[in-house]
């Protein structure tokens, strides 16, 4: 008997569910739950991680990310304005910067600022400066493109209205264009913040003291100390506590600004 189109679709969906159940059952039998529990959910180890995993590691992750983001945002704004400049060399410099730092791993920037630049220029950065500068330099390359796109998305009529009221070019930028551009780019900027949160883990390259540990390095050190994956699991969960709300915020903002047309 031939099935109708709808019946066939229904049967296919049934097969998909069935397959999922089979996979889960096989996995449950094959897995060694005792070992998994010991390796990932060792509550004794977990209790030893607190409160430092919050008061030191989570706190530092947030501080490094926030500083890197703030400095990177400023640098990104400067680069975006350079990219839109009528003076060609400014545009070239900005383009080279953006393409260069988007094209190399963030890890290399950390290495350069921790080892290379101090050696080459006889300067020393403390660890906080190193992580802030590195994150800012990498983040700025991405944010510059986002900000430029946002500035260009502000309708021309807004600029003409401002100029017709006697605002200079700079004043128009500051009071009309940039505030509106930031409204437009808030969702992608939030995503950038999520990226930087994760990139802050690259500080593991630098030999930092205990009080300067962030989540990843803290987790790795604790892993070596206690054996087992529990600290890594805890660190991962704490990353999610930062990034999931940011992702949610980003999607909400997107809906909010995407739905409204700027006149």
């Amino acid at each position, binding site marked *: 008997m031939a099935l109708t189109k709808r019946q066939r679709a229904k049967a296919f969906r049934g097969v998909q569910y069935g397959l999922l159940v089979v996979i889960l059952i096989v996995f449950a039998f094959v897995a060694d739950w005792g070992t998994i529990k010991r390796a990932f959910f060792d509550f004794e180890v977990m209790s030893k991680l607190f409160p430092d995993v919050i008061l030191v590691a989570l706190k530092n992750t947030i501080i490094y990310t926030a500083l890197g983001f703030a400095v990177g945002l400023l640098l990104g704004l400067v680069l975006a304005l350079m990219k839109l400049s009528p003076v060609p060399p400014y545009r070239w410099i900005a383009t080279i910067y953006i393409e260069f730092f988007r094209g190399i791993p963030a890890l290399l920037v950390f290495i350069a600022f921790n080892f290379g630049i101090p050696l080459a220029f006889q300067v020393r950065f403390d660890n906080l400066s190193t992580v802030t500068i590195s994150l800012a330099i990498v983040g700025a390359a991405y944010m510059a493109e986002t900000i430029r796109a946002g500035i260009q998305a502000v309708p021309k*009529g807004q600029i003409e*209205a401002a*100029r*017709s009221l006697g*605002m200079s070019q700079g004043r128009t930028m500051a009071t*009309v264009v940039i505030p509106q551009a930031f409204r437009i780019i808030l969702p992608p900027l939030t995503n950038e913040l999520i990226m930087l949160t994760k990139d802050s883990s690259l500080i593991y390259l630098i030999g930092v003291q205990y009080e300067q540990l962030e989540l990843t390095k803290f987790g790795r050190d604790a892993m070596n100390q206690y054996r087992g994956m529990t600290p890594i699991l805890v660190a991962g969960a704490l990353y999610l506590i930062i990034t999931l709300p940011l992702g949610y915020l980003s999607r909400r903002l997107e809906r909010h600004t995407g739905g409204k047309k700027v*006149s």
Partner: protein
Amino acid sequence: MTEPAVVITGLKKSFGPLEVLKDIDLTVAPGEVVCIIGPSGSGKSTMLRCVNLLEEPTGGKIVVNGVEMTDPDVDIDRARTKIGMVFQGFNLFAHLSVINNLTVAQRKVLKRGEKEAEEVARHNLERVGLSEKANAMPAQLSGGQQQRVAIARALSMSPEVMLFDEPTSALDPELVGDVLGVMRQLADEGMTMLVVTHEMQFAREVADKVLFMDGGYVVEQGPAAEVIGNPQHDRTKSFLARVLNPTHQDPTD
């Protein structure tokens, strides 16, 4: 004789190879209302935008209230504060409330104090009949309301001349009347106005002078009753026939 409000002589404007304005002369007396009509693409907007230098003229001279706009050394930002402009698309600052739309340039450009700027703003909102919308955001207003706010924003700079570029073309028909009403009142109060419009009724009743533009030239200008009521040139006649009676076919078409 008083000094004219606007004097345009030999105005030329090209966009690359495209010659949009070929040779425009126009003198506007203080308090005069000039309506500019003409087919699409004839350069009406371009001419208006040259008056406050939103477009840089390729040639010719423009003097507004004694200030030569085309002088390379003119303080253009300062000169523009005396020339209000109203756009077809309203262009209210989307991130600012109505009251802030009206105060931002007063404060940042004219350096008026907060209290004075707000007083001026509220007075002008009242003139356009929108006092109760002071705290609304532009997106919450109808097109007609937005355009009246845009007029109030321009008036808040205490301009000596007002430019209108098809202020009612983007509006639903039932909202056109409110905006034209505000403009009519402004004309009655003695404002010098240059209005690009397709509203022939308004031009006929309010304009002291009507300018018909075509192909980058002023083809005909004179009192409204003459240019609209008794046009001399064929191009003016066929344009008016088309505008006043949209189903009209030119015999030559």
